[in-house]
């Protein structure tokens, strides 16, 4: 019964000022809708750019990093002078020594969801006089497809022939265009080791990423080894995926002690893109926060005005036994009701915005506007909306609670 009367008074105040309540609530609505919209957009962009990244990049990559020659006698202290003539990169071979033992070891880690060997070879593609530079990826097609979903990017032919043919190749769409080649045509590949192979195009893929489509071909891992005149233990990279790509850095550090080769996570590789994402995220969050803050000021103002008009009412409530905390509850509840109405409308408005925009065709590699429903955004915006309105209600409510009734009655 005791709390009910506070609720009843708050509700009566709200109902007798529907217009003001609605105006204050609409401020919150705009803030929440903007927050949802911009954050969903950021999430959409993030998801889109990740999909693009993971089409060609694994979460973790193990490879032999370049080494620079070291002096025979190492410096014992930083001040000691060590003489070394003409330091050079001393990488003699790109291969990982005993790669299959390492691969087995990597696969044994329970956080690794998949791992596959790769042979990457720098090559030229030729057709007549035309020459293109690129990288030939020697892969086990089944494993590579599982990791990068190559099947999903295929525009012609199929991947199946690659599994058991050393003379088949799947090429990027721009290579095919530039060299004027189609399915079942022959492509000449010249490797840096001087090996020339003529291979049959059995498939064409298009990732819609220009750099990838005009440089990358997939071929059988043994064919790639032939390109560098090496045997079946020549493996340049081990690609590994983990369950949650966001934790790539932590897992790369966990994986590093297993091997002397370099373990690199995708976030390090794409630090520039991710930094851009982060800056966009910060910008959009601060803009929507600013709008929410303005909405909070709206609520603050309206409550302040209500309280100024209701000094007499507050005084008589205090005289008849309402404690300060009852007064605070009444007015915070009013703010909260405005906040709940505003937030609910904001959630609906945000959802409508997402629904409309996700159907807008923008063309290019993205096709449709990269925006999508993320329940997390809706939850955080609800929490923010309610917290901010409670805050905006609390300040004037506390002022109301401190009103001295005697001063009102004596005026």
């Amino acid at each position: 019964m005791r709390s009910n009367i506070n609720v009843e008074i708050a509700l009566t105040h709200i109902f007798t000022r529907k217009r003001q309540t609605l105006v204050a609530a609409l401020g919150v609505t705009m803030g929440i809708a903007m927050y949802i919209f911009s954050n969903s957009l950021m999430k959409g962009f993030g998801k889109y750019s990740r999909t693009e990244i993971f089409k060609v990049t694994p979460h973790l990559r193990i490879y032999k990093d370049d080494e620079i020659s070291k002096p025979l006698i190492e410096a014992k202290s930083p001040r000691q002078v060590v003489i070394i003539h003409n330091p050079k990169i001393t990488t003699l071979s790109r291969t990982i020594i005993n790669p299959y033992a390492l691969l087995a070891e990597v696969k044994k880690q329970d956080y690794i969801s998949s791992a596959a060997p790769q042979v990457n070879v720098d090559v030229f593609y030729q057709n007549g006089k035309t020459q293109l530079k690129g990288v030939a990826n020697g892969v086990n097609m089944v494993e590579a497809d599982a990791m990068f979903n190559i099947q999903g990017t295929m525009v012609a032919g199929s991947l199946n022939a690659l599994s058991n043919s050393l003379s088949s190749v799947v090429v990027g769409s721009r290579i095919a265009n530039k060299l004027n080649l189609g399915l079942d045509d022959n492509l000449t590949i010249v490797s840096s080791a001087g090996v020339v192979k003529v291979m049959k195009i059995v498939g064409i893929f298009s990732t819609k990423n220009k750099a990838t489509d005009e440089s990358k071909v997939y071929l059988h891992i043994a064919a790639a080894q032939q390109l560098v005149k090496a045997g079946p233990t020549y493996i340049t990279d081990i690609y590994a995926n983990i369950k949650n790509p966001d934790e790539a850095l932590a897992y790369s550090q966990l994986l590093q002690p297993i091997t002397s080769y370099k373990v690199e996570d995708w976030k390090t590789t794409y630090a520039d893109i991710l930094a851009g994402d982060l800056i966009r995220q910060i910008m959009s969050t601060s803009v929507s926060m600013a709008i929410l803050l303005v909405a909070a000021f709206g609520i603050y103002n309206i409550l302040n005005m209500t309280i100024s008009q209701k000094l007499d009412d507050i005084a008589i409530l205090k005289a008849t036994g309402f404690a300060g905390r009852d007064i605070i509850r009444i007015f915070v509840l009013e703010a909260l009701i405005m906040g709940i109405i505003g937030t609910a409308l904001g959630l609906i408005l945000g959802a409508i915005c997402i629904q409309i925009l996700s159907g807008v065709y923008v063309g290019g590699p993205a096709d449709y506007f990269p925006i999508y429903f993320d329940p997390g955004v809706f939850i955080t915006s609800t929490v923010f909306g309610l917290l901010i309105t409670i805050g905006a209600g609390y300040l004037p409510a506390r002022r109301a609670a401190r009103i001295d009734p005697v001063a009102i009655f004596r005026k």
Partner: protein
Amino acid sequence: MKNQTVILRTQSIGKYFYDPIRFKVLDDVSFEAYAGEFLTLVGKSGCGKSTLLYCLSTMDTAYEGELFIEGQKVTGKKTDELAAIRSRAIGFVFQFHYLLPEFSCLKNVMIPALKLGKYSHREVEERAYQKLDMLGLKDQALKPASKLSGGQQQRVSIARALINDPKIILCDEPTGNLDSKNAQNVFDIFKQLCSEMGQTIIAVTHDNDFAKNSDRTIELADGKILNTKTYLLD
């Protein structure tokens, strides 16, 4: 006096105003009020009678000396405890009615009782009707408080003061805004409350007739008790 139980007692109450200059508005005020007594505080404007009333009300706590209500010392209690005491033991009637304009008369009367939480919602409603009936306002119960005449509003505010059956009813110029007919009406109600319900009324008034017809009058001058008159009635 039928009953000599002390319901309210002050012990050398003193109070200063600091604005614009330090000024002693109450000085060594000590008196007792008894159960069922109709006590009036009179004096010239600025003599401190309203100030004294607000000290008694427990709303003003910045005073010297001590205040006892129902034998319990209330001086020095926390504001929330004081609010609980007001809720239970004190009713207020002011010169202005201070009804909440958004609520019906009935609701205005019910609010202090709902706050006290002693009775269920239905019982409170029943009691509120009873009080309004006693003040001749039963047919106005569901009207908004702002739609009533001044005299009716004042009677609603009296019903509100009575809803929790407080031992003490404090009034600040309760008839100040009323015409003589309504004032007489209010006075009769007060008289009835004292004699029939045993409630103590302490009223600040400028109205000499009102004071003369009460049980006892305390006259204040310059913050001190000048004299106390007891009228022998009946």
